[in-house]
């Protein structure tokens, strides 16, 4: 049998390394639930909750400390939801889901808020079509801050705020196109 030269052996080893790397990558993707794009990961995320597919109102890309999280704001029939997908070197994976909430059509605004790590998100849907802008008040210790979204994502709104104290959503207000406040909801905190 012909003896292989060192160069041939090196080429053989490089092929083995490539095959192993492909096997590991494919195995990692298959085992840990990674998707090639964010939209597919989002659809899978909703499906695992037996929810949706929702009508996406907005995709808020690359927020958070590492700029690797994408938020999907969506409405599905009588529910609204904010879903996240996260990107890392293997692709996109299912991230946090902030829960699915029923839209209360009796109220002008349906909303929810969550704190995760140091990030607070407030989001919701305006049932009143006159609402064009939404403002929220957050209490951070002794301080109160106000955030405003001048233009809704069709009927949805979304706030993301880095917080270090324990934040509390105290009030949420809806404004019409003239900037006149047409509703104000106290959260009771």
């Amino acid at each position, binding site marked *: 049998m012909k003896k292989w*030269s*060192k*160069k041939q*052996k*090196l080429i053989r*080893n*490089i092929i*083995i*390394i490539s095959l*192993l*790397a492909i*096997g*590991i990558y494919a*195995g*990692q993707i*298959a*085992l*840990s*639930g990674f998707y090639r794009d964010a939209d597919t990961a989002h659809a*899978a*995320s909703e*499906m*695992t*909750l*037996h*929810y*949706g597919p929702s009508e996406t109102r907005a995709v808020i890309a690359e927020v958070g400390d590492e700029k690797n999280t994408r938020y999907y704001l969506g409405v*599905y*029939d009588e*529910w609204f939801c904010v879903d996240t997908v996260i990107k890392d070197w293997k692709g996109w*994976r*299912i991230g946090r*889901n902030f829960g*699915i909430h029923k839209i209360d059509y009796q109220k002008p605004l349906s909303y929810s808020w969550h704190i995760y790590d140091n990030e607070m998100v407030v989001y919701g849907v305006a049932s009143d079509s006159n609402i064009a802008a939404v403002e929220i008040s957050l209490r951070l210790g002794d301080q109160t801050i106000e955030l405003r979204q001048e233009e809704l994502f069709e009927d949805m709104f979304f706030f993301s705020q880095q917080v270090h104290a324990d934040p509390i959503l105290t009030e949420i207000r809806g404004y019409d196109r003239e900037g006149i406040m047409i509703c104000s909801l106290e959260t009771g905190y």
Partner: protein
Amino acid sequence: MPSLNRRSFLDQVCSQIKWKAAHREICAELDAHIEDRMERLERLGRDKEEAEFEAVAAMGDPIQIGKELNRYHKPYLSWLFHCSWVLIIFLIVFFIATVLWPWGSRLYAQNQPVRTNEKVIWTLDAEEQTQQIDNRIVYLTGADFTESGILYVYWKSELLAPYQSGWSFALNFDVYDQNGNNLLESIGYQTQMAAVGGIEHYVMVFRDFDAESIEKLTFIYDQYHRHMEFTLDLMQKEAAE
């Protein structure tokens, strides 16, 4: 050229080869050649010393041989070659630990039953009633009734795309008896979940279960326009062994 003994010949060859890690392999090979030739010469009647000098002389100029071999044994090529082996070993270990092992353990665990350790009075095999909801398959596998009056109902769930992670399936079922009474409103149930090799096993725990009068259970899941229904005919129960 002065006569060289075997050792000096090999030293001179190796002095020309920069890649030191290759010295041993080269020496062994050249030495084997010299040894072969010596044996032949000894068979022809030379004594050992004469045979050694003659065999070494027949090999040629050690400096020239060393230079030739040095061209072949390039240090960077040899380094790359050695590093490639280290990398291959590392990747094989990584592949086994992160791909083969979890995959194998999942396959192994797929059909491992999850049952209670308590003393069982009767048991029921649901013959794996199966329903699919989105990309998840849900199995009702059976039930055990224990002497402490607890009914355990066993479930299993897996994603259609195997090995993909996702949100856990929750046992958000309404449970009715044969008379339409909702057990959630009377005794309620607790749920336990165990992931065995990636397959999610769930157990519904009904405490103070009235096994005398309840003959049939209907489990209804109805959320976000998804509906599934399972039934458990308790009359099919079998006494535990």
